C-alpha cells in the first residue's frame, strides 16, 4: 500500500504549509512510537493508536485496544474509510483526500489541538491566595456591620417608635426588651420585665419617678418637708438609690453613705431633734428610749425620748419588781417555791421579731389570785373591769346572806344561823341580810383594792368612800418597744441568753427601769460598714428604714408636683 501523507501546518498570519511523505507498507500503523509508519509525536497519541488496512482496494481503520478514535465526530473502534472522512487521533485530525495517480491512499494530518503552555495552565488551575478563594474582607466587613447595626440598633429603635414593628418582633431576641437588657431585674419587677417602656418612658431621658409611682403610690417618702425644711429632701429620684438591672436582689442600697451623706451633719442643715450619725461603729448617738409619761390630770399617756445615759424612768403605772420575780432562790406560789425565768412571761411572738404582750390571766394570775372569799377560793373578781368587781362581790355575798349559815360573828342572825329546810325568811329578815351583804361587799372591796390584791401591782386611788364606793386604778401602758425608730428582731438573736443584753433585769426593783442595753452592748458584736475583725458589718439599713415619713406618701408627692408645678417639697412647705 502506498499512501501519500501530507502534514499541514497553519501559519500564524494565515495560510497553510505542507510537508509531504510517501508511506509504504502492508498496512498503515499510526502512533507515538517511532516504529509506526505514521509517527505522530504528540504525547497525547498512544504508542500504537490505530491502523489503516487495505482490503481489496477498500480501506479500513481500526483502533488499537484502549485507544480513542473519533470518525466524523463519532466514537468508533473501526470504520471503512471514504474520501472526505475525518478521523481524530489524539490532538490530530486526519482527513481522507483524493489520492494521486499511482497512490492507494492520500491523507492530510494536522495538529489541531496544541498542548498549550504548561505554566499558564498550572497557574490557571491553582488558587494561591485566600482572596482568590472567595474570602473578601471588605465585603464581610460591610455585611457584619450592616447586620449588627440593623438587628441591634435600628430594629429596637424602630420598635420603640412604631407599634407595628414592636408587635412584629415581639419576644424576638433582637428587640430592646431582650437584646438591650443589661442585667437581671429585681425579682419583684420581673413581671413587667418584657416591657422596657414601663420604666424607660422617654428616649434619652433618665427614668423618672412617675414610672415608679405607677405602682408605689403608697410607699412612704423619707421625711415630711412640713417638719424638716430641707428642700432637697424629696427631690432625689427613686433611681438614684434604687439601681435596677443589677440582679435579683440588688435594688436596695445598704451602704452607710445612703444615710450618712445627709445625717453626718444634719444639725447644720435643719432644725431637728435628730442627732448626727454617720456610721454605727464610729459615729452614732447613744440610744434614746421612747417611753410613756402619764399625765394624772388628764389621765393620758404621752411619749418622751430620753437618752439611756440619762437613766430614763418609764411611767407605765404598773408596779413590777423584776428582782423579786427573778429571785434565784425562788418565788412562793400556790404550788410551792419556784425559780422563775424570763421566758415564763416573755414569749416570742409569731414572727419572732418581738415579744407577746404580758397578760394578767396568763402570766400573773397563778400567783396573784383575785380570790376574795377564803372559804371559796374558786370565786375570783374579774380583772380589768372595775365596775364589775363590786357587782360580783354584792352578788356573791347577797346570795350567801340569803342562804344563811355564814360564819361571821358580826353578821346578823339571819345570815349567821343555819336554816331549817322549808324556812322562808320574812321581808324584814331579807332586808337585814342584804344590808349586811352590801356592807360586806364594801368591806371586801376595800380590802381588795386598797389592801392585799390590786394595789400590789396598780396605783389605786379611793375616789369616793360613800356608798357606792369608787376606786380608780391608773391605766397601765407597757411599751411594746422602747426604740421604735429601729428594727430589732429577737429571733435573729435567739442564740444569745436574755441576760447578755438584759442583765440588769435581775437587779431591777421598779418597773420604771428601762431594761434595754446601750449602744456599747450592740457594738460588742456589730461594727459599722468598715469590716472589723470578729464583728459583723452593719450599716444603717440593717436597723433603720428609709421610707419613714408617716403621712407623706410617694403618691402625695407626685400629685403635688403635678398639680402645683412646684416640687413636692416646695408645695408642702407652702413656698
Amino acid at each position, binding site marked *: 500500500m502506498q499512501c501519500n501523507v501530507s502534514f499541514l501546518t497553519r501559519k500564524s498570519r494565515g495560510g497553510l504549509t505542507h510537508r509531504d511523505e510517501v508511506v509504504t507498507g502492508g498496512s498503515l500503523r499510526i502512533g507515538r512510537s517511532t516504529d509506526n509508519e505514521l509517527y505522530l509525536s504528540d504525547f497525547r497519541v498512544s504508542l500504537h493508536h490505530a491502523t489503516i488496512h487495505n482490503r481489496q482496494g477498500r480501506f479500513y481503520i481500526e483502533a488499537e485496544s484502549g485507544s480513542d478514535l473519533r470518525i466524523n465526530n463519532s466514537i468508533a473502534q473501526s470504520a471503512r474509510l471514504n474520501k472526505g472522512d475525518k478521523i481524530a487521533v489524539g490532538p490530530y485530525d486526519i482527513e481522507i483526500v483524493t489520492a494521486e495517480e499511482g497512490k492507494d491512499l492520500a491523507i492530510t494530518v494536522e495538529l489541531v489541538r496544541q498542548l498549550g503552555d*504548561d505554566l499558564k495552565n498550572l497557574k490557571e488551575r491553582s488558587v494561591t491566595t485566600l482572596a482568590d478563594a472567595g474570602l473578601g474582607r471588605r465585603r464581610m466587613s460591610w455585611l457584619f*456591620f450592616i447586620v449588627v447595626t440593623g438587628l441591634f440598633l435600628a430594629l429596637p429603635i424602630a420598635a420603640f417608635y412604631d407599634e407595628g414593628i414592636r408587635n412584629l418582633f415581639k419576644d424576638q431576641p433582637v428587640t430592646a426588651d431582650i437584646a438591650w437588657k443589661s442585667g437581671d431585674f429585681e425579682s419583684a419587677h420581673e413581671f413587667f420585665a418584657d416591657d422596657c417602656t414601663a420604666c424607660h418612658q422617654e428616649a434619652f431621658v433618665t427614668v423618672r419617678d412617675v414610672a415608679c409611682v405607677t405602682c408605689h403610690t403608697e410607699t412612704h417618702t423619707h421625711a415630711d418637708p412640713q417638719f424638716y425644711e430641707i428642700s432637697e429632701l424629696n427631690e432625689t429620684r427613686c433611681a438614684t438609690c434604687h439601681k435596677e438591672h443589677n440582679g435579683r436582689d440588688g435594688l436596695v442600697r445598704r451602704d452607710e453613705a445612703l444615710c450618712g451623706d445627709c445625717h453626718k451633719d444634719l444639725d447644720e442643715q435643719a432644725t431637728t431633734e435628730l442627732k448626727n450619725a454617720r456610721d454605727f461603729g464610729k459615729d452614732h448617738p447613744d440610744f434614746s428610749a421612747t417611753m410613756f409619761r402619764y399625765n394624772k390630770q388628764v389621765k393620758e399617756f404621752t411619749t418622751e425620748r430620753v437618752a439611756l445615759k440619762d437613766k430614763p424612768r418609764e411611767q407605765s403605772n404598773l408596779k413590777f419588781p423584776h428582782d423579786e420575780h427573778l429571785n434565784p432562790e425562788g418565788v412562793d406560789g400556790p404550788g410551792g417555791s419556784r425559780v422563775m425565768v424570763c421566758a415564763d412571761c416573755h414569749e416570742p411572738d409569731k414572727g419572732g421579731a418581738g415579744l407577746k404582750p404580758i397578760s394578767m390571766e396568763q402570766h400573773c394570775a397563778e400567783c396573784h389570785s383575785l380570790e376574795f372569799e377564803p372559804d371559796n377560793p374558786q370565786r375570783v373578781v374579774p380583772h380589768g373591769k372595775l365596775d364589775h368587781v363590786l357587782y360580783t362581790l354584792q352578788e356573791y355575798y347577797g346570795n350567801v346572806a340569803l342562804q344563811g349559815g355564814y360564819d361571821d360573828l358580826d353578821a346578823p342572825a339571819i345570815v349567821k344561823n343555819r336554816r331549817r329546810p322549808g324556812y322562808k325568811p320574812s321581808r324584814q329578815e331579807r332586808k337585814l341580810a342584804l344590808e349586811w351583804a352590801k356592807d360586806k361587799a364594801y368591806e371586801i372591796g376595800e380590802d381588795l383594792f386598797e389592801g392585799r390584791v390590786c394595789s400590789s401591782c396598780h396605783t389605786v386611788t379611793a375616789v369616793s368612800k360613800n356608798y357606792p364606793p369608787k376606786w380608780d386604778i391608773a391605766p397601765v401602758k407597757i411599751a411594746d418597744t422602747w426604740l421604735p425608730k429601729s428594727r430589732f428582731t429577737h429571733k435573729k438573736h435567739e442564740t444569745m441568753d436574755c441576760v447578755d443584753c438584759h442583765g440588769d433585769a435581775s437587779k431591777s426593783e421598779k418597773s420604771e427601769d428601762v431594761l434595754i442595753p446601750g449602744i456599747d452592748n450592740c457594738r460588742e458584736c456589730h461594727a459599722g460598714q468598715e469590716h472589723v475583725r470578729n464583728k459583723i458589718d452593719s450599716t444603717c439599713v440593717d436597723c433603720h428604714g428609709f421610707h419613714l415619713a408617716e403621712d407623706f406618701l410617694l403618691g402625695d408627692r407626685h400629685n403635688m408636683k403635678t398639680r402645683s408645678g412646684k416640687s413636692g417639697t416646695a408645695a408642702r412647705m407652702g413656698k
Partner: protein
Amino acid sequence: MHQSLFVYGGFRYFKLSLLLLIAAVVAYFWHEPVDGPNGGTWLGYTLGGLGAFLILLLMWFGMRKRSYKSSMGRVEGWLSAHVYLGLALIVISTLHAGFQIGWNLHTLAYVLMLIVIASGIFGVYAYLRYPQLMTENRRGKTLDTIMAEMAELDRECRDAAAQLTDDISQSVLNCCEKTRIGGSVMRQLSGKDNNCATQRALDEVTRLSKSLPREQTDDGRRLLMLLGKKNELVQRARRDVQYKALLDIWLFFHVPLSFALLAALSAHVVSIFFYW
C-alpha cells in the same frame, strides 16, 4: 520588623498600656459602688469611655497604615500601640462590665471584641512565625519560579515518557494537566491535596515501571526521578501557599469582626443612653 514592634520607642506603648492597666485595676478594687461593680457607675462609665476610645483608636490603625502621606506618627509606632493597647483593652473592658455577662447586645459587643483581640494575638504569632518558615521553605525562590520549574519538569516528563507505555503516558499526562496548587480556603490552609495528580502519577509510574522492558528502564528511571523532583516542588509550593494563608487568614476574622464590633459598640452606647 517584629523586633521593632515590641520594643518600639523603648517599650513606650508597653509602658503606657501597663500604666492604664494598673490604673484600671487599682481603681476597680478601690471603688466600691453600692450596687456592685457594673458599667453604670462613674468608674464604669469612665472605663467604658476609655474602652470605646481605644477601640476607635485601634481601628484607626487600618486607616493610618494605608495613608502613606500621613505624618501622624510612624506606622511601626502605631502597630506597636495597636498590639499593646489591644491587649490592655481585654482588662479595661472586663472591668468596665464588672464581670457581668448575659445573653444581650452588651455581651455580644464584649465577645466580638474578645474574638477580634484573639485573632489579633494569632496575627502577632503568625507574623513572628510564618515569614521565617516561608523563607526557609522557598529556598531563595518565589512561588512563581517554583511553578515555572514545575512546568519545565512537565515538559521533561513527557519527553522521558514519550516511548513508554500508554498507561505511563496517561499518568504523566494527568500529572501535567491536573496538578494544582492551593484551591479552596481549607485546602490552602491544610497545605495538602489528597487527590494530588503528581503524587498519584509518581505512585502509578513507580508501579508500572517495574514491568518495563530492559531497553526502556533508563527512560523509566529518568521519568521517576523527574516526577519525584516535581512532587517535591509541589509540596513546597503547597506549603508556601499554606504559610501565606495562615499569615493572612486571621485578618479575615480580625477586620470584618472588628467592624461587627464597631456596630455592636455603637448600638451598645446608643442603647445605654436611649434607655438611660
